[in-house]
């Protein structure tokens, strides 16, 4: 067990970039990240019933000047498309997403695959800047992406592969 895990590094990066509110519809890939956030007093963790609702909470936090991130599966991205268009795009409210990439070549559950096949195209269609993270060595790209998000005030999605989270 390393003393400083990927999950620890993600938490540090979020905190350093002013993100204190984490909104999650969970995924087992990020179970350790979620429990770490829940135990870290620098963060407030919220589990909405659905992703679309979480998007609304994140938008309210943004309007109030509070940084937030959504921790969701790509399946959940599909659940928030209209709300993203009519709230985030229309009002120019940026959204920060950490998305676990289900239904890719590493997936064990076949029902995840059709959405997995369409995830990158969907993010592109929504105009969300996407940063794919495949391994711990990609952590600097998380920091760069968060920097970009803070400066540009435009949405960013970190599309994280199973391997980024060291899940076998």
């Amino acid at each position: 067990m390393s003393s400083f895990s990927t999950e620890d590094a993600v938490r540090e990066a979020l905190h350093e970039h002013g993100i204190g509110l984490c909104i999650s519809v969970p995924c087992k890939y990020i179970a350790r990240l979620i429990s770490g956030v829940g135990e870290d007093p620098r963060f407030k963790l919220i589990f909405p019933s659905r992703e679309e609702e979480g998007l609304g909470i994140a938008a309210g936090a943004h309007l109030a000047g509070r940084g937030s991130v959504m921790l969701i599966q790509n399946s959940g991205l599909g659940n928030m498309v209209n709300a993203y268009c009519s709230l985030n795009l229309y009002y120019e409210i940026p959204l920060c997403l950490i998305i676990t990439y289900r239904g890719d070549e590493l997936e064990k559950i076949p029902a995840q695959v059709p959405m997995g096949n369409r995830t990158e195209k969907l993010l592109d269609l929504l105009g969300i800047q996407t940063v794919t993270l495949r391994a711990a060595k990609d952590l600097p790209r998380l920091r760069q992406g968060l920097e970009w998000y803070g400066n540009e005030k435009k949405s960013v999605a970190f599309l994280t592969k199973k391997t980024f989270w060291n899940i076998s």
Partner: protein
Amino acid sequence: MNRQEIIQAIADLAPNDALIVSNIADASFELCMLKDRPRNFYMLGSFGLAPSIGLGLALSRPEKVIVINGDGALLYNFGCLPTEHRYAPDNFLHVVVDNGAHGATGYQPTATSAGVDLAAAAAGCGLRAKIVQSLHEFKKAVLGWLADSSPTLIVAKAEEKPPQAAPLVPFSGPQIAARFKQALGS
């Protein structure tokens, strides 16, 4: 009572610094017509998400936050109720104008017209919910919340529609967001 009377009462009773989030279409148009102010967030899309936006605000700011929702919109995002029970702070009030219909799309009946009791559902989710039938009762409930944060969800049984429709909100989304943020210094 009708929705405009309910919204007028909210506008009259809300503290000056309160943040008000209004549901898509008529609730937003009417709030803007009756009392436009920078601390109003007129939600013109994202059906159902007014209470979620309000919750995000209430979790991040000390001011009172009042959400003006509708019955159809609450049914659409019903999952917001358990979330409110778990996380909503005391500065959050959820008002549901229950006219039993989807007003903006031609008054198709919603499930509340078939007897679904939104206050009972909210109570089942652990919220301090109250149903009111008159404007007088409604004002009393809002004053109660202002005094001691109870109830936190008010279902106001309303007439189908007010006699006069309100004009569209004359601001764009970015204008609404920008002046809201400017008022909050965020």
